[in-house]
C-alpha cells in the first residue's frame, strides 16, 4: 500500500516537472506529445502493475486507491476520480449485480456544492463490491487553474494543455461528476451557462475518446508482441482476456442535439480542445472536411424582425442554423480529427433524434453502430419536447441492441459486457435541460442504468416563473381530480367539456385564449368544438402564416370568442396574440416562461379598446396532481406541493395592487 502510494505521488511530481518544461519549449507537435504521454502512462501502469494486473481484481485496486485517499487529505487528490476510466470498463458485473441494478435498490446520499447546488447521488448497491465512496461528495471540488490539476482528474495531458483556464466552478463540478462516470441530470441549463456546459461535456467526451484510443494502441503493441512466428495472421493469435478493450462497434459516444447550430458549436469546441489556436494565426484547424462542415452547419435559418422584436430567449434558441435533421460522424485519428466519417468508422456521432431515427428505420442500413455507446450526452432536452419527444425515446430504445451482423472487430478483443449484452449498464448519460419535466425524470430513471450510479440536481425552485408576470391580474389554479396518469387525459377532457365549457358559454365569455400544451389534446378539443358548433379560431404549429394572421385578426376583433392555441405554435413562432381577455391554460405549460409570456400579452397595450370588456380579465390554469413538476416551475416548489396536495381544489395568486 505504502509503495503504491509513493509511486502515485512520484508520478504526479514527474508529470508536473515535465509540464513546466513543455510550456517553456512551446508545445511540441501533437504526435510527439501523444507518444510521450503514452509512454508516460505505460510506465505508470507498469509501475502499478506488478501486484495488480488482472482485470477482475479491479475491485481490489479501487479499494487501495481509496485507502490512499484516506491517508492523505490533500487538496489535489480530491480531484482524483473515484473510479477511473479503465477501472470502470474493466469491472465485470455479475448476474446478481444486474438484478440489483434493475431492481433499483440504491443507496441515496445528498450533498451540496457551491455552483450546482444541492444534488442527490443514487448508487446501486452491488454485492460484489464494498459500498463505494462514502460521503466523498460532501467536499467541494477545489478550483482548477492549472493543467496539472486536470491531469490529476485523469484528463489526458494533451487535452489539459489546451483547456481554457480557469474553468468556472460550475464546469469543475460538472466535470468532477462526469469524470467519475456517474450519470448526470442537470435541469438548470440557461442561455447564460449553455456554453460553459457545452465546453465541459466536449472536454469529457474528447477525453474519453483519447483514453480509449490510447488503450487500444497500447494493447495493439502488446498483441503484436504475442505473435509467435512471423507472418502469423493477427486473428490467429490467442489474445488474453485482459486485453479486451473494444466494443462490438467503434462508436463510443453519442451526442444528441436539437439544431445544426448546436452541433456547430460543439464541434468547434472539440476542435479548440484538440488543436489550440496558435497566436497570430487564423487558419482553420487541421480537420478533414471542415469547410464543408462550416458550409452545412452555419448560417441563419430564421429571420428575426427588428421592429417588434421577438423575446430574447426566442432569439437565443433559434439563432443560427435551426435545421433539425442532421448527423455527423467524427473520427479521431492519430493526428487529426475527421468529420463526415462513415458511421461504422466513427468514434463520436453528433445527431438529432430525428436523423438518428431515420437512420434506424432505414432498411438498407443496420443500426448496429448504436450497440457500444459508452457515453450519451443529451443537451437542450426541452427542445426535444418541442420537436418530438417520441423520436428521442425511440432512439434510446435502440441503443445497445444485439447487432444484426457479425462485428468487424476482432472478437477476442470485444469487452465482456458487450458480449453478454449488458453494455447499457456501462453507459454514462449526461442530460442537460433548462427545467424539470416528468418526461425528463422518466427518461433519466428508466433509460439510464449506469452501474456506478447517477447524480440528480435537486435545487428547490423558490419563486418560479410567476414572478415575471407583469400584468396585474388574479390567476386561478384549478385542480382536476385524476385517478391515474393513464386516465389523466380523459379526466381533464371530461372535466373541461362537462364543467368549464358550459360555464364559459353561459357567461358569454369572449376573447378567450385556450392554451393547449399537448397536440393530442389540441386535436381532441378542436374536434369537440367543431362537433358542438362552437365559434372559434385556431392556431397550431401546422397552421399556415396567412391563416394565423386571419385567426389573430378575427380573435382581436371579437369575431370569435375562442382561440385554440397550441404550445408548439407559440414555441416556434412566438406570435404576439393581441386582445386576450381571458386566458385558460388547459394544462400548465411545459415551458415555464410561456406562463408569464402569455399573461404579459394581456397588458393594456395589447388589448382592443373597442371590445367593450374594459377590465374584465381572468387567468385560469387547470392542473392535476401529476403536473406537480411543471407547476413548480411556475409557482415554485413549495407552492406547487400545496397546490397538488392541498385540501382545496382551486387557488388564487394575485399581483393586483
Amino acid at each position, binding site marked *: 500500500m505504502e509503495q503504491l502510494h509513493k509511486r502515485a505521488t512520484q508520478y504526479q511530481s514527474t508529470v508536473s516537472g515535465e509540464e513546466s518544461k513543455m510550456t517553456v519549449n512551446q508545445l511540441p507537435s501533437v504526435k510527439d506529445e501523444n507518444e510521450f504521454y503514452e509512454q508516460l502512462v505505460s510506465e505508470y501502469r507498469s509501475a502499478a502493475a506488478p501486484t495488480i494486473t488482472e482485470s477482475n481484481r479491479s475491485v481490489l485496486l479501487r479499494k487501495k486507491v481509496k485507502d490512499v485517499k484516506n491517508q492523505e487529505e490533500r487538496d489535489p487528490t480530491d480531484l482524483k476520480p473515484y473510479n477511473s476510466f479503465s477501472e470502470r470498463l474493466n469491472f465485470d458485473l455479475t448476474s446478481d449485480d444486474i438484478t440489483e441494478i434493475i431492481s433499483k435498490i440504491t443507496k441515496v446520499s445528498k450533498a451540496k456544492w457551491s455552483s450546482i447546488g444541492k444534488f442527490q447521488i443514487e448508487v446501486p448497491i452491488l454485492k460484489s463490491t464494498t459500498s463505494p465512496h462514502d460521503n466523498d461528495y460532501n467536499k467541494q471540488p477545489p478550483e482548477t487553474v492549472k493543467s496539472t490539476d486536470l491531469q490529476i482528474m485523469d484528463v489526458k495531458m494533451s487535452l489539459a494543455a489546451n483547456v481554457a483556464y480557469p474553468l468556472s466552478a460550475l464546469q469543475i463540478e460538472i466535470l468532477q461528476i462526469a469524470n467519475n462516470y456517474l450519470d448526470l441530470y442537470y435541469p438548470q441549463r440557461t442561455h447564460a451557462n449553455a456554453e460553459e456546459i457545452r465546453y465541459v461535456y466536449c472536454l469529457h467526451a474528447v477525453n474519453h475518446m483519447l483514453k480509449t484510443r490510447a488503450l487500444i494502441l497500447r494493447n495493439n503493441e502488446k498483441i503484436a508482441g504475442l505473435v509467435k512466428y512471423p507472418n502469423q495472421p493477427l*486473428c490467429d493469435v*490467442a489474445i488474453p482476456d485482459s486485453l479486451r478493450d473494444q466494443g462490438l462497434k467503434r462508436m463510443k459516444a453519442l451526442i444528441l442535439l436539437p439544431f445544426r447550430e448546436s452541433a456547430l458549436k460543439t464541434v468547434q469546441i472539440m476542435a479548440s480542445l484538440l488543436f489550440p489556436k496558435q497566436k497570430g494565426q487564423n487558419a482553420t484547424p487541421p480537420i478533414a472536411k471542415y469547410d464543408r462542415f462550416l458550409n452545412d452547419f452555419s448560417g441563419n435559418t430564421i429571420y428575426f424582425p427588428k421592429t417588434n422584436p421577438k423575446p430574447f430567449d426566442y432569439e437565443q434558441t433559434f439563432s443560427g442554423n435551426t435545421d433539425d435533421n442532421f448527423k455527423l460522424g467524427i473520427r479521431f485519428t492519430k493526428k487529426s480529427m475527421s468529420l463526415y466519417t462513415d458511421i461504422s468508422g466513427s468514434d463520436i456521432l453528433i445527431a438529432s433524434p430525428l436523423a438518428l431515427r431515420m437512420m434506424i428505420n432505414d432498411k438498407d442500413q443496420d443500426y448496429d453502430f448504436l450497440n457500444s455507446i459508452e457515453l450519451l450526452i443529451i443537451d437542450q432536452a426541452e427542445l426535444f419536447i418541442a420537436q418530438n419527444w417520441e423520436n428521442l425515446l425511440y432512439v434510446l430504445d435502440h441503443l445497445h441492441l*444485439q447487432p444484426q451482423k457479425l462485428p468487424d472487430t476482432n472478437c*477476442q*478483443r*470485444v469487452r465482456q459486457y458487450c458480449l453478454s449484452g449488458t453494455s447499457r449498464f456501462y453507459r454514462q448519460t449526461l442530460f442537460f435541460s433548462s427545467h424539470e419535466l416528468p418526461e425528463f425524470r422518466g427518461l433519466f430513471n428508466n433509460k439510464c442504468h449506469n452501474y456506478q450510479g447517477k447524480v440528480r440536481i435537486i435545487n428547490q425552485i423558490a419563486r418560479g416563473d410567476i414572478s415575471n408576470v407583469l400584468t396585474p391580474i388574479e390567476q386561478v389554479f384549478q385542480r382536476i381530480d385524476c385517478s391515474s396518469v393513464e386516465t389523466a387525459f380523459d379526466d381533464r377532457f371530461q372535466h373541461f367539456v362537462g364543467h368549464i365549457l358550459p360555464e364559459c358559454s353561459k357567461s358569454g365569455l369572449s376573447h378567450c385564449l385556450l392554451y393547449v400544451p399537448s397536440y393530442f389534446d389540441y386535436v381532441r378539443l378542436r374536434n369537440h368544438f367543431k362537433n358542438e358548433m362552437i365559434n372559434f379560431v385556431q392556431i397550431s404549429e401546422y397552421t399556415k402564416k396567412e391563416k394565423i394572421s386571419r385567426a389573430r385578426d378575427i380573435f382581436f376583433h371579437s369575431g370569435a370568442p375562442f382561440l385554440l392555441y397550441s404550445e408548439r405554435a407559440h414555441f416556434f413562432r412566438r406570435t404576439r396574440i393581441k386582445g386576450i381577455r381571458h386566458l385558460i391554460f388547459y394544462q400548465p405549460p411545459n415551458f415555464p416562461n410561456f406562463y408569464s409570456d402569455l399573461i404579459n400579452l394581456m397588458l393594456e397595450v395589447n388589448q382592443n379598446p373597442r371590445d367593450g370588456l374594459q377590465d374584465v380579465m381572468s387567468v385560469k390554469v387547470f392542473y392535476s396532481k401529476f403536473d406537480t413538476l411543471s407547476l413548480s416551475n411556475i409557482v415554485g416548489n413549495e407552492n406547487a406541493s400545496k397546490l397538488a396536495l392541498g385540501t382545496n381544489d382551486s387557488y388564487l395568486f394575485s399581483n393586483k395592487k
Partner: protein
Amino acid sequence: MSETSEDEQAQLQTSEEELSDEEGQEENAEDVDEDNVDDQSATSSDEEETPKAEQPLTWKDLGLSETLCKACDELKWKAPSKIQKEAIPVALQGKDVIGLAETGSGKTGAFALPILHALLENPQRYFALVLTPTRELAFQIGEQFEALGSGIGIKCCVIVGGMDMVAQGLQLAKKPHIIIATPGRLVDHLENLKGFNLKAIKYLVMDEADRILNMDFEVELDKILKVLPRERRTFLFSATMTKKVKKLQRASLKDPVKVEVSNKYQTVDQLQQYYLFIPVKYKDVYLVHILNELAGNSFMIFCSTCNNTVKTALMLRALGLAAIPLHGQMSQNKRLAALNKFKAKNRSILISTDVASRGLDIPHVDVVVNFDIPTHSKDYIHRVGRTARAGRSGQAITIVSQYDIELYQRIEQLLGKQLPLYKCEEDEVMALQERVAEAQRTAKLEFKDLEDSKGYKGGRGNKRTAASDNQDDSEQFTGARKRMKPMGGRGGGKGAGGRGLGRGGAAKKNWGRGKNKN
C-alpha cells in the same frame, strides 16, 4: 438422410458382409490402422475384466476427479454404464477413443466426463469441440455438459444452423470452454467471425461419428479438420460405426483404442420389436389402428420424407390425435418448439424424419413406429433406440409393405434375428377404413392449401418454413415467387427488388392458384 449416396450403399453392403461373419471381420483388416484398433480393443477389455467382475464400479474408481463424481451423483447417475466404464479410463489415459455402444447407453457421459476431467486439470478456453450431425442432438449434448459442469463453472456454447448467427458469434467471442456444433454452422463462423479460431482445441469429439464422417458433411468436416491443431485427442462415438478405414483416417486418429460394448448391432433387451406386413395402401389405417391400440403411450413415428411427416400429421390431426411433425425443413425455432412440446408431453405423437433418429434422449418414448422403412438398415438401430432407453422398456413396430421386403430383410440380417409379427385383427383394422379415408381427404386438402400458401415444396432442400399454423405474408410472397421462378420467363422478380415485390408476387400467386385448379 433420405438420399442414399453411392458410397453409403457400398459401405452398407461391406459392413453387412463384415457383420455376417465376426471372425472374418477381424481378419479383414486392410490397414495397419484397422489392426491397431482391434488390438487395442482387446487389451482394453482385458484390463477392465477384473474390476468388473467383483462389484459395481463407482465413478471414483474410473479415476474421475471428485467434483465430477459429485456432479454425477447430483444428476442421479448412480453408477457408470458399460460404455462409460470402458471408455473413461482409456480416455483419461490420454488416448484417442472409438466408442461403440448401443443406443441409450450413456455415450454422451462417456466422452463428456473425461473432457471435463481434463479441463479441470488444465483450465483453458476453447478446450473441446463436439461435432454432431443434428441440431437437436447438439442442444441435448449442450444440456448434458451444462448439467455436469454447472458446479465448476463450465461455459458451453451450442452452434447450430437455423439460429441467430450474431448471438452465436457473441457467445463464441466469450470464449466458452466447450463448443458443441453442427459442422455447417461452425464453418460459417470460422469464416466470418473475426478473431475466432480453433487453434487451442485439445479435444475433438464426433458424436454419431459414422454420420459425421459420411459424405454429407465432407466439405465442412475437411475445413474444420484443417484448422484444428494436430496435437489433440479425438473421440469417435456412435451406436453404429463405419468400418471404412478411409473414413476413419480422415478423423486422423492416433493409436486409437476401440471400446466396444456390444460388437454386434444390438438393440437393448428391454425393447420388443415387431414387424407388420401389410399392403401399402392400408399403411395409414394400420398406423391409426396401432395408435388406437396402444393409446396412452407416447409415440415416435418415423417417415422417409418431410412431406410424409406433414401429411401424416395432418391426417392424424383430422382424426383428433395430437400429432406434431418434426423435420429438417421447419425453421429451427419450430423444430425446437415441436421437440419441446413432445418432451413436455403436451403432444403424445411425434412424427419425424430421420433428423430425430439419432441420439435424442427423450426418456418417455414408449413406442417407435417405422411408418416408412429406413433406407439404411443402421438407421433402424438408431430409430428404435429412441425408446427403451436407460433400462426402460419399449416397443418398436416396423410397417413393411410389399415394396419394402428387401430393405426389411437387410435389417433382420443386421440384427441377426427374425422379428415376430405384430398381431392385429384385420376386421378391427378395416372397420377404421372409412374414417381414415375421410381424414386422408381432409389432410390432402389442407396439405395442398399449405403448399399453395407457403410455396412449400418437398425435396427442395431450401429452408422453407413448413407446415405449421402460422400465416406469414412475406413468406407467402417469396414462396410464390420462388416457386414460379423456374417455370416462367416472366421472372423479372429479381430486378424488381423489394418495392415491386408485393404486386409481382401477388400476381404470380394468382397465376399459380389458377394452375392448380386445372
